[in-house]
């Protein structure tokens, strides 16, 4: 499929994109996360698209997934209103404070800390310790 973005044309392999997106969507809706960190590498590496095209479009793709899975979770009675009300304002507030701090810290350090943190969390979940 050919797409045009800001005057440039790109050739996109939609088969790879859709299969990858489908699998990531199952996983992310099943476990309740967005899926951005998986979608962005899929689109940049597997589909060879430039970053500036991916940032917005991947968000749009994920939004489809999240809205449908929200609906489905609600349908299955997995949604708890009070719990949501406790987390939602905090998420909004965090989204507001986050970018202000982001200017002051090195993304490299953050990524490394995140990496270590994620590994620790993963090992905990896998029952290693």
């Amino acid at each position, binding site marked *: 499929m050919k797409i045009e973005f800001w005057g440039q044309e790109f050739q996109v392999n939609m088969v790879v994109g859709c299969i990858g997106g489908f699998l990531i*969507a199952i996983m992310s809706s099943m476990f309740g996360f967005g899926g951005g960190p998986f979608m962005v590498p899929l689109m940049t590496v597997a589909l060879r698209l430039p970053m500036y095209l991916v940032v917005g479009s991947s968000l749009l793709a994920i939004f489809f997934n*999240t809205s449908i899975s929200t609906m489905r979770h609600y349908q299955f009675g997995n949604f708890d209103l009070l719990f949501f009300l406790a987390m939602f304002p905090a998420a909004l507030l965090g989204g507001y404070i986050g970018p202000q701090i982001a200017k002051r810290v090195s993304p490299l350090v953050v990524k490394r800390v995140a990496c270590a943190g994620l590994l620790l969390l993963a090992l905990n979940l896998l029952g290693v310790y």
Partner: protein
Amino acid sequence: MKRKTGIGPWLFAAMVLLFGVNAAGAAEANAPAAASAPTITIDKTELNNGGTIKVSGQAMAGKPVYLEVYAADHAVRANRFDSDVDKDTGKRPYIFYITSEMPAYYKIFVPKDMQAKIDDEAKKKKKWSYSELLKNLGADVAYSVPPKAKIERYQSTLMASVIGSRGDLLPAMDEKENKKRSMQLVKARFRNINNVVAAAIDMKPDGSYTADLKIREGLAPGKYKIVAVVDKQAKSEAATFENKISFPTMYLENAGTSLNLVYPFFLTLVIAIFGVLMGAGGGFIMNPLLVTLFPALPHTIVAGTVTPTVLFSQGSGIFNYSKIKFINWKLGCGIGIAMMVGGFIGPKLTEMITLDQFKFAFGWILVVLAALMLWQTTPGYLAKNKKEQAILKEFKKRAEEASKGK
């Protein structure tokens, strides 16, 4: 949800009825006619988010007494996906059992000398069986509330899973089968052996008993009932106490637990900030942290409630990008439709897996994510990324100017 509101008034009516019976029962307690039935008295009728209740009474000499304690005001959902190989036929049944009438709290207290039997069952770790435990303890005579829960069962097929359905509703089960399945659901719901049984009763040779019942924190508010049971015929009247909780601890109706809401608030705040910094939605960290820190929360509720939380940050992100025309709608919608199909199937799978499977799979997802993050800090990637970011900034600037120029 609709169904719950429908049940509410009935529950209330039942409570009123039971209460009336209760009051009448108390008056009759002194009558000698009730000699075979055990008696029960409790030292207080109110708890503040858990605590200890002293129970005493008179049962039969030489026979163990059991205390069945359950939440009378709140019911929760329990579900289990049966994919274990059937011993007789060697096939996997793939039947999905679900009930919405499981008491929010259910525990049987047994005499202290049975502690060893509980420990034996606990040695099986995650494979402990509630039905065997009850049989070994002789406590199945006290097991009376969950079997009354209406259990629905669905025959799952691969096809049904693909279209995201629970499968075909099978005919209702008979009483015996319902009881057997309810035991499995008790385990699926309360998971830990210590949540459903405890050895706490002191028996005297003359048949009198005392017990300190520890009621844990984070339970549903409202009325709880305690029934002393010797055997199927010899049951005491229900003693009632009330568990009270106060803000910021609130009862989460769908999760079936009470939680101090301040904790998730601050947790989300910290995670959301960190999520922005590392460029990943907070859901990745939020879900595993919530299931580890609050083991009482079912993973289905965690996944189902975190998802809408990230929805709004995504929405605002899209809005901001679309203002400067930084989204390719064709590409986004194309892949988005494929993802929609995935998002349709995923939530059903959540309720089919157990917490342990959830943790296991999530563990590996996080390992992959950590690897991705590590890759993003390698020099090769950084050099490439620097270029990309420069282009990104340049394009963004152009886009912003273009949208302003209009």
